[in-house]
């Protein structure tokens, strides 16, 4: 029996070794992979117990986590939700969803990001509960409120950028939505609210500032065309163009008109300068210029300003587009921002910011710092240059034209007492009978710019085809710039 018993002992040993192996495999080797598995409720429940960090705009908290008595441990609370909805998005553990900055900075806010590592160690050692890090945005509550109040009743967006750094000072998209209503832990109620918002024809969930259905930039695109002209070396702001009341696009029978029907109200009656074409926002000379430049040149310039590129703000913007391989007539249309060009207000603000910053375009960003619990700085976000769109002389030349536009040209709605504002309006057509899209882009003060703004108002501002960019979009930009400059 002994021999057999010895073998049975070995059998038992082997069985238990298999168990040692399988348990080790699961608890050590596969532990991380299993923790990441979507169906693993334990990981999620653990994450609920960590107090999510706050989102700050400057020094103002706009999203905080307050203790709640339910299984999610904390309730997300948003201040001024309609005003900040495009920026913060919402975070709902009951639905397992997050949008906006809540999603983009989720690693830091939830305490699982890399920048949290050292503070986690500190907390384990000191025995304090785990907390997420706070995120300080570059957004300025003063600018944000001015933009939001000015956009009331309209469907549109405002983006304001600090030209020297690329920091976004305001991002408003209206209509906004109540993020608190989507953050409730009752998933049925939250889903019902969400379905309602999705079905809403005004599309409150769409962030018009950085994406959504993009609009043709209209006359604001003339700035890019001018930049392309200067960059080609073949033109200056004083170069002249024929000044008829209409211009037939090459190879077609389509005629381009100025928006008031007649010729450009400047020059010697036969020709008009590029500077005046900008100042009075004349379509005909710009169409002629565009045809002469060719789509390649315009696109190159546009891309230097950020067209055809999606940015991580960290929100993901939709790339504004200037199409490839355009025929001459289509190129002519883009000369005044119609045709197949599409832009977001973010992009047009970058155009202004680039011009304002002596031609150097900075990469736009929304986050300034990641802060620990005691407001110690865990991570400082620096400025990144996107590229030189033009040299400073060219920028100065275009700036002068923009100043003229505001002081005595087509953008007088943006005039501010005692401040030199540079700007460009736009009134874009969307189809034969559709309402216009109204634009403004500009910066102030012209000599040492502190803020660059772009405003887009969709749906004609409620006035169908009788509103204009200057009447509706310019005053909004003026209020935003005033609020920041007069702080």
């Amino acid at each position, binding site marked *: *029996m002994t021999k057999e018993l010895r073998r049975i002992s070995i059998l038992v040993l082997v069985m238990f070794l298999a*168990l040692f192996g399988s348990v080790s495999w*699961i608890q050590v080797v596969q532990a991380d992979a299993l*923790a990441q598995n979507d*169906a*693993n409720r*334990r990981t999620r429940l653990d994450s609920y117990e960590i107090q999510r960090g706050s989102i700050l705009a400057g020094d103002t908290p706009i999203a905080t986590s307050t203790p709640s008595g339910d299984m999610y441990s904390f309730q997300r609370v948003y201040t001024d939700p309609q005003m900040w909805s495009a920026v913060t998005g919402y975070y709902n553990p009951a639905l397992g969803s997050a949008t906006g900055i809540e999603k983009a900075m989720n690693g830091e806010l939830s305490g699982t990001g890399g920048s949290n590592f050292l503070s986690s160690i500190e907390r384990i050692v000191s025995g304090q509960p785990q907390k997420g890090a706070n995120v300080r945005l570059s957004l300025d509550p003063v600018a944000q409120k001015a933009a939001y109040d000015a956009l009331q009743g309209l469907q549109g967006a405002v983006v304001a950028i600090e030209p020297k750094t690329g920091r976004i000072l305001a991002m408003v998209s209206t209509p906004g939505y109540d993020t608190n209503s989507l953050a409730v832990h009752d998933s049925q109620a939250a889903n019902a609210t969400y379905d309602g918002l999705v079905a809403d024809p005004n599309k409150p969930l769409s962030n018009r500032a950085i994406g959504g259905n993009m609009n043709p930039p209209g006359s604001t695109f003339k700035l890019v065309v001018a930049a392309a002209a200067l960059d080609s070396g073949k033109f200056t702001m004083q170069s002249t163009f024929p000044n008829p009341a209409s211009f037939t696009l090459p190879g077609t029978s389509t005629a381009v008109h100025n928006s008031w029907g007649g010729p450009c109200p400047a020059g010697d009656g036969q020709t008009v300068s590029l500077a005046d074409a900008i100042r009075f926002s004349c379509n005909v000379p710009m169409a002629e210029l565009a045809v002469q430049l060719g789509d390649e040149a315009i696109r190159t310039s546009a891309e230097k300003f950020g067209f055809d590129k999606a940015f991580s703000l960290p929100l993901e913007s939709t790339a504004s587009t200037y199409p490839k391989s355009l025929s001459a007539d289509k190129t002519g249309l883009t000369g005044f921002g119609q045709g197949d060009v599409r832009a977001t207000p973010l992009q047009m603000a970058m155009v202004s910011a680039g011009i304002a910053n002596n031609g150097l375009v900075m990469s736009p960003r929304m986050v300034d710092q990641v802060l620990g619990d005691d407001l110690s700085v865990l991570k400082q976000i620096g400025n990144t240059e996107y590229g030189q769109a033009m040299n400073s002389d060219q920028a100065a030349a275009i700036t002068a034209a923009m100043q003229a536009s505001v002081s005595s040209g087509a953008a007088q709605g943006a005039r501010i007492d005692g401040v030199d504002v540079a700007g460009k309006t736009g009134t874009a057509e969307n189809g034969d009978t559709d309402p216009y899209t109204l634009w403004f882009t500009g910066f102030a003060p012209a000599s040492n710019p502190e803020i660059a703004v772009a405003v887009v108002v969709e749906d004609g501002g409620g006035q169908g085809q009788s509103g204009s960019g200057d009447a509706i979009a310019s005053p909004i930009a003026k209020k935003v710039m005033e609020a920041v400059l007069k702080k």
Partner: protein
Amino acid sequence: MTATAPAHNAGDVAADTAVLRALRRIRGPQTQRNREFWLLLFAVVVAGTALTLVQLGALGRIDPMILLIGGGLAVLVFALHIVLRFVASDADPFVLPIATLLTGVGIAEIYRIDIANHATGWNASSNKQLMWMAISVAGAIALVIFLRNYRVLYKYTYLSGLAGLVLLILPFIPGLKADANADVWISIGGLGFQPGELSKIFLAIFFAGYLVRTRESLSSVGKRFAGITWPRMRELGPVIVVWLISLAIIVAQHDLGTGVLIFGMFIVMLYVATGKTSWVLIGVVGVVIGVAVVSQFLTYVQNRFNTWINAFDPDLMEDQSYQLTQGIFGLAHGGLLGTGLGQGRPQITPVAESDFIITSLGEEIGLIGLFAVLCLYMVFVSRGLRIGVAGQDDFGKLLAVGVSFTIGLQVFIMVGGVTRVIPLTGLTTPFLAAGGSSLIANWLIVGLLLRISDGVRRQPRVVIG
């Protein structure tokens, strides 16, 4: 002692005392019981600590009630220890402490799950488990006291076999049956009971007795084929009967685990008794064929295999493999050191306090804790196998081997099932899992092992002429 004994002459007396002294030395003083005392104390302290940690971790405070009850049970266990000092002073010192420690840690974890589920009173499995433990230890005490000589069981071989079969069939008797996944439960006055657990012991006695009676004819020469001596057909008969019984259990009672367990127990005991590897081969092949055939037309077997292989398939994770995957998530959540008693989430896994007690423990005490638990089981099984080596009568050896190997096999099937080494079955983890019948049966095995180990050690190795 010999001072007043009638002396033949001085030399003989001196030789007698010398022999007696030698005998006493061979027998040894009560070191076994002393050793057991300290081990038992250690086990009780560790189990009590586990209970306290569970309270601190899950409740944040200490509830004296549970500790008092735990203290009462500790007294009961020490009572068994004292009884052993009197009636079985040479019993193995490891068996009782290990059983106590495992049962105690099991209760701590079941209690933790009760806290998480807000279960109180008779809904709380831990309260029931405490009661079952009291009954089990009392049963072990009774067995140790009343069964002075385990060889008595040899006389009741066939009666035991009958009892074992009857217990297996009980759930089919109308009026007694309680519902469950496997048809293995009966209900006595509202309390669920699994008679199959007890039948394990009776069948082990039966197999041991039967094999001792027939080992000669079973080992006798048969035809040689492929280098192995194959038994003759008439010896094959009883084996086939057992095989059929096991299959019947699997098919009729939907209890894959018990079927495999009983068959495994028999084959191992057969091998140890006869020493013929041919039996093992026949056994293994028989089980494989049986399970393969059965899985063709039994959906629950197919489901078990499917869940085993495709456990993390998202379609299955919703319901079929939900329990298995949640258990595995729990284990992974614990990692190397565990989350700490009372601080994990074992209650997410369904039936966490019985079928998945190992994953619940693994989540909270980590890989290191599980290794300790598995080592405890290994030592327990090895003590039983030791009796097999050291014993001198075949019945005791076979019985001890059978019973302890069954525990080892049961642990392997259970832990292997929840860690996907093999498909999951419905067996319970001995001592740890919540379940009265399992606890009673396993503590009866403890009593049996104590009794047999004592009997084995008392047989002096020196034959005095």
